[in-house]
């Protein structure tokens, strides 16, 4: 696994090892391995407490059309922009974005790796299309991160605290009334994980 740190701790070490598998399955299912740098989970069943801190890998830039395709003016006489796709991975998102902007009737896909957009002034549209953002990994990452937290927590731990501050994610869950020191503990865990760097938490 490409994580720098992946620690799961519990009162009994074998049980922690077993739980690590659950977290690891969650990471694989949600394709989070590449986005996470460090992760530490501490489970204290006697106190019904689950703490998880995650340090994300930063620098996930939004994906623009120019990142995976080339846009240009179509054949002479046709007022259209032709987009040649190099990487098909973002094709569905591309179509959705184009439909939203130009309407379904104006977007055609004559062949697998070509999409054409009918518009009045193709020359003006080309730079606009090149700069269009089709996916923001940071946004989908957040929802996947929350999903991971909910999957990894024992089901009954419904009292939850979470904080996402830049690349630092803290999650504490319990069944009883949330104690302040548990949250502080989690913040300390994050500091340790960062190697003394301040976590920059606002709470």
């Amino acid at each position: 696994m490409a994580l720098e740190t992946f620690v799961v701790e519990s009162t009994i070490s074998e049980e922690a090892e077993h739980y690590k598998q659950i977290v690891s399955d969650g990471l694989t299912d949600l394709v989070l391995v590449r986005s996470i740098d460090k992760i530490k989970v501490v489970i204290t069943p006697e106190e019904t407490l689950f703490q998880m801190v995650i340090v994300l890998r930063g620098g996930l830039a939004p994906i623009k059309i120019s990142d995976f395709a080339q846009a240009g003016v179509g054949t002479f006489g046709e007022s259209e922009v032709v987009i040649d796709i190099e990487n098909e991975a973002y094709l569905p998102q591309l179509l959705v974005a184009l439909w939203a902007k130009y309407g379904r009737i104006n977007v055609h896909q004559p062949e697998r790796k070509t999409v054409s957009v009918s518009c009045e002034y193709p020359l003006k549209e080309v730079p606009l299309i090149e700069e269009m953002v089709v996916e923001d990994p940071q946004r989908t990452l957040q929802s996947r991160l929350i999903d991971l937290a909910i999957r990894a927590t024992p089901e009954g731990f419904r009292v939850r605290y979470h904080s996402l501050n830049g690349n630092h994610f803290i999650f504490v869950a319990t069944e009883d009334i949330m104690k302040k020191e548990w949250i502080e503990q989690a913040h300390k865990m994050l500091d340790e994980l960062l190697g003394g760097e301040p976590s920059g938490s606002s709470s």
Partner: protein
Amino acid sequence: MAAVLEPYIYDGGMYKHGLILELLEDLGGYLIQAIPAASEVTLIMLIPEKDVHLVEALSTKLLGKLKKSPLTGTEIAVVSPTLAYHHLPHSACDVAEYLRRGGANTNMIGLARGMGRRVALSADYERKLINEHDIALFSFGTFSDCIINKKPKLFEGIEIPIVVTGGPDIKTEDIPNANMYIGGIGRVSHRLRKEPELEGLDTMNEMVSEMVDRVREEIAKDPLVVLPVRIMKEIKDQIPEIEHVLTPAPITIQLDGLRVKLPYDEFHERVENIEFDEGLTLSEVAKVMPSKMKNYILIKVQRKSEIGFVI
């Protein structure tokens, strides 16, 4: 004196499997369930002990496999504290599937409020539903503290034998009110495919079979007035509507009764009036009651000590 019946599963092609059914009928055995899947068929049956070799010879001829299935004729409740979708796939799914391979009929029961430690509880309806089965298998998680100290409150009001599965190695004695504990099958969020996991499931099937044997011995001390399979056969002969029920097991055999998947209000009188060759009706030898599962009919056969004879 009735012949001793042995439970077997036949796995083979659809082609000519009717020969096996004919032979079984001639020998006086019973077909409990036939599961067709494309060109394959799985037959769960009870064969008279002395004639097993005949069926074995025929199945070898048809290039099928005949193997013993000690869990046949049991209905097991696989109880999970939760069946929440974001924890899929549950290990309880694999547990239930593996028990089915052993010949058991399993029902998965996800408790509405079974999750957690302090907050875990079961409803009266759920307890009654679980008690309709032969054995309750509780599928628990990873932490021994939870399994020993917190989860056993879910066993309150359960009158049938309780088997517990979980991750850590714990002694059965440490878990209050459990009759058996099987380790190595805790909470996982992937399908159980790896070798040690499958070995754990094999051990589970063996241990559950042991538990079934214990219950069977208990019943043998005060035998049932009539075998549940015989009631099944009479229902099939006397209530033709059962052929139109589309569930996989329209009549589910239990160790001391059976579940008939016909609406209670409409059919209970006809079920009660089922006649045996000896001149008795079913209501004289068994209790026919509404089941907690949908609107099915539950039949519990009475014991020799209650009636005074065995047919």
